[in-house]
Each structure stands twice: as structure tokens, then as C-alpha cells.
């Protein structure tokens, strides 16, 4: 549905996107994960038809974005980052205007506007000016706009921005229904890791315009599971001394996080676990809890970005 091959975007000397290739199939949610400036928005803007690529190809529903931009845009629902609508328009007026732009007219337009407004829970706000809406409701209007023409592909740039926790939960469920029940190809960007982990079928990690990794959450985390992680809870604030001593005693061990009463460790291999037990038994520090911990996306992201994708790959 969404196909990208060798996509590159330069802003003068700056490479915003480098040789990016991926696909999003119908019914699939692909999450773009990356820090600010990773190239997420630029890629989505190219796929939305707002910017041209410097090199490479991108197509939506078989329509090449350079040669057949309007059919490609017709097949796409695009929610830009910081979505804004003309403040002088009421929500209903704005949706009807957008529906008209997307080729809907007459009763079909009115019906569809009411449908998407109900679907996204702002059916009672159609007469409110856009400027009077909260950030969360503005975001919903933006998503409603993207859904108006019932496009097969959705491009959502930071769709969770500005939503409160309850809205995030609803929005996550809604995105999954769109993809899995309505067979839409959903590509969304975020730098909020838990959101990406919970929604995306596959995750594409991007940094400085380059793809560092792409796969399901399980596939990506499997890259880290070779190195077991342990969380130690200590009595009496003894963590600082241990944090310094552990890497010297155990080559390859990394202290991932150090707090006053605890440490998060990444071991070089599983064989270090029993050696660590024995070593700790001979130490004066009192260990009150010893807990293996599954690696999470934050760790993966940190390792990928720090190592340029090579350490975890």
C-alpha cells in the first residue's frame, strides 16, 4: 500500500533522509521511532505529497508521488504534526470544506462529516470555532479530516501529541481498529516509545535520516536479549559504591541506571548471573531484591542510536 525505495531528501548540505526503503501493507501499523531531527516528519511530508524527494521513489496505493501526486494524495489521509485549521471556521464548516476538497458532495458529504465526528467523539462540537477547541479535540479534528474520504493509507505525524492519558488509550485502540478491522495501512511517527510499542505491528527506528532497524517489537527486542538485564535493590543507599565496583569486577557488565537504592545492570552474558550472586554474597552491601528485567524499547532505542544501529543489529 505504501512503498518507499531509496528515499533521500537533502536540504542543501543537510541530509534529512538517507536511502530509506520500507513498505506498509494493508491492515498493518508501522511506527516511525526516532529522536527529534531523525527525518520522521520529512519522510511523512514526502509521502503526503507536500515535499518532493531528492532521490528515490515513493508510492501510495500504486500511485507514484512524483508522477501521479494527486491520485496518491487521494489515496492518503494525512495528519500533519501540529495540525491547524483556519480559526474563522467552525468545526463542521471546516470538515465540509475538506470533504469538498476530497471530492465529496451533497448528502454524502454531510453524512460523512457527521460520521467521522461521531466516530472521533466530537459530534457535539461541530458548531464550535476551531480556535476554541482544546489541543486534544484539534487533534481529533485533524484525524477526522484524514479519514473523511475513507482513504486506504493513513499518514499520522505525532498523532499522540497533546492528548491526555485517557485520550491516548482511546486513540491507540482507534488506530488499531482502523488498521486491523478496516484494512488500512497506517504509518505514524512518534518519539514516545511506549505508544509505538503498544500500537505498531512493526517499528522502524530512524536516526539522522538513516534507518537503524525495522521489525516487530519482539524481533527488535530479541536483539538485546542476548545480554540479560538485572535490577538490584539495595538497603542503605549503597548503590554508588557498587556502581563503581561492578564494571571492574565483571568485564562487559554495564550499569544502565543507578539510583540511591538500586541499580539496573546489563550483563555480558547469562554466565555472569551466578558469578554475580557469589560476588555479591561476599560484599558488605545488603541486597534486598534481585530481579531479572526484560529489555524494553527505551533500551533498544538508546543502544541503536548510540551505536548507529550496528551494536544491536
Amino acid at each position, binding site marked *: 500500500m505504501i512503498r518507499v525505495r531509496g528515499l533521500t531528501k*537533502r*536540504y*542543501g548540505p543537510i541530509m534529512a533522509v538517507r536511502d530509506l526503503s520500507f513498505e506498509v501493507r494493508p491492515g498493518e501499523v508501522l511506527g516511525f521511532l526516532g529522536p527529534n531531527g531523525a527525518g520522521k516528519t520529512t519522510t511523512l*511530508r514526502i509521502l*503526503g*505529497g*507536500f*515535499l*518532493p*524527494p*531528492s532521490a528515490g521513489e515513493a508510492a501510495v496505493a500504486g500511485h507514484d508521488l512524483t508522477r501521479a501526486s*494527486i*491520485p496518491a*494524495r*487521494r489515496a*492518503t489521509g*494525512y495528519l*500533519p504534526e*501540529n*495540525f*491547524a*485549521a*483556519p*480559526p*474563522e*471556521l467552525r468545526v463542521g*464548516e471546516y470538515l465540509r*470544506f*475538506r*470533504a*469538498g*476538497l*476530497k*471530492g*465529496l*458532495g451533497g448528502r454524502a458529504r454531510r453524512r460523512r462529516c457527521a460520521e467521522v465526528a461521531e466516530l472521533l467523539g466530537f459530534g457535539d462540537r461541530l458548531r464550535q470555532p476551531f480556535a476554541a477547541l482544546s489541543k486534544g479535540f484539534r487533534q481529533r479534528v*485533524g484525524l477526522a*479530516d484524514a479519514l473523511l474520504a475513507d482513504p486506504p493509507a493513513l499518514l499520522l505525524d505525532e498523532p499522540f501529541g497533546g492528548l491526555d492519558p485517557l485520550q491516548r488509550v482511546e486513540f491507540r485502540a482507534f488506530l488499531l481498529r482502523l488498521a486491523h478491522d478496516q484494512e488500512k495501512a497506517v504509518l505514524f511517527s512518534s518519539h514516545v516509545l511506549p505508544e509505538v510499542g503498544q500500537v505498531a505491528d512493526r517499528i522502524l527506528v530512524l536516526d539522522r535520516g538513516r534507518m537503524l532497524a525495522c521489525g516487530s517489537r519482539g524481533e527488535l527486542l530479541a536483539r538485546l536479549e542476548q545480554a540479560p538485564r538485572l535490577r538490584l535493590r539495595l538497603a542503605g543507599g549503597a548503590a554508588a559504591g557498587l556502581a563503581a565496583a561492578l564494571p571492574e569486577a565483571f568485564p562487559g557488565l554495564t550499569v544502565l541506571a543507578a539510583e540511591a537504592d538500586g541499580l539496573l545492570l546489563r550483563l555480558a552474558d547469562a554466565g555472569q548471573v551466578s558469578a554475580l550472586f557469589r560476588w555479591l554474597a561476599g560484599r558488605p552491601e545488603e541486597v534486598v531484591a534481585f530481579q531479572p528485567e526484560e529489555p524494553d524499547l527505551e533500551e533498544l532505542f538508546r543502544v541503536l542510536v548510540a551505536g548507529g544501529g550496528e551494536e544491536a543489529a
Partner: protein
Amino acid sequence: MRAFAALLRREIFSLLVTPSVYLLLGVWYLLNGILFVYALDFSPEVQSDLSLLPQYFFGSSLLVWLLLPAFPPLVTLRLLAEELRLGTLEPLLTAPVSDAAVVLAKYLGASLFFLLFWGGVLFLFAVLSLLGAPLDWARVLGGFSGALLCSLLFLAVGLFASSWSGNLVLAAGGGAAINYLLLFLPAIAENAAGPVGAVARAAHIPNMLDRGFAAGLLDSYAAAFFLGLAGLFLFLTWVRLVSRRWVP
């Protein structure tokens, strides 16, 4: 076509619900009313021959030299600059509609709205006629047509200036500056020798209005001049809009 109609409706609606545009309209009516009364009460030519009123009003008055270049950019300043400023251009240009349709709809919307400005002026002539003044309607309608065509050019310039950035002051000031240059440069250079003088005389807007339209003549050269130049500025606006799609 449906997308273009939606764009056009939105542009006209947005202008109709913008309070500052009504303030502008009020100032325009007031200043034109003052000029109209001034022409009737203080111009010896008009007082001796009322048929010269359209020529005085549409051809060589302060309306042409001062108001006409300034007001169209004040109407068009928001058309693209506001979209750039608010960030609404991205949703607009990612909709399945061509950049040319966006430019044309904005221009057509502003042009139709500007008819309100000229409607009020025409109303002054209608009132005068109803009061029994022997007006030469060929000259009135000719002058009106010339002013309308000139407005179309100045609106296109205003739209072009509005595409530069999200700065509304730059959009209004830049548009007005180009309009004043279009008006004054040929007037300054018309007596120059050689091709410069020839070009200046061929592009002399007040002469086209004064000696052509306001004299009751439908000047096809002047009409082509105004429409052609308006087309050029619309093209430049389109280029400005599509240039973001060009590969660097």
C-alpha cells in the same frame, strides 16, 4: 471541479467573516465618497461638464494614484501569508487538489469580493443619476470596467506578495510597493527617449484609464495589458507555491 468550488466557497466565506475587511471596506467607501463629493463641488471641469466626472474619478484622481494600488493588497494579504503563518498550508497542499487550483480559487475569491468595493462606488453614480444628473453612462461603465481590470492586476500582485512569507505586513507592504511601482515608473519615464520611453508609454496605467476606459472606449490593448500582467503575477504565485516541490 468540486474541489475548486469548495476552495472558492471557503475563500469567499473567509473574507466575508473577517471583521478587518469590513473596516477596510468602510474606509474605502468613506474616502471614495469624499473624492466623489470633492469632484462634484470643487473640480471646475466637472462642474462645467458633468460628463467628465467618470474621467476625473476613474482616470486621474487620487483614487487611481493613491487608493487603488493600496487596497487590493490589503484584501489579499491573508490569502497565503495567513496560511503560512498558521500552518494551514500543509493540510491544504496535501489535499488532492492542484497548486494551480489553490492559486486560482484564492484569486477568484478575492476578485469577486472586491466587486463589493466597486459596487459601492457605482452606487454613488447611480444615486447621482437618480437625483437627475445627466451622466454619460458609457463613460461611467467604461471607467468602471477600466478600474475593475486594474484592480484585477493589483489583486494578482497582492496575492503574489502574500505568497512570500507568513508576514502579513510584508504581504501588504510588498504588494502595495509593486503596485505603486507599476503605476509611477511608467509615469516617470514616459518622456524618456528610445525604447525606455516607448515601454513606459505602453505601460502607462493612468493614461489607459483616463484616455481609454473613462473616455467611454473599450481599449482591447489595455484590457490585454491588465489581464496579461495579472496572469504573469498569478503564474509567479504558482511558481512560488510549487517551488517547494522542486528537487533541491
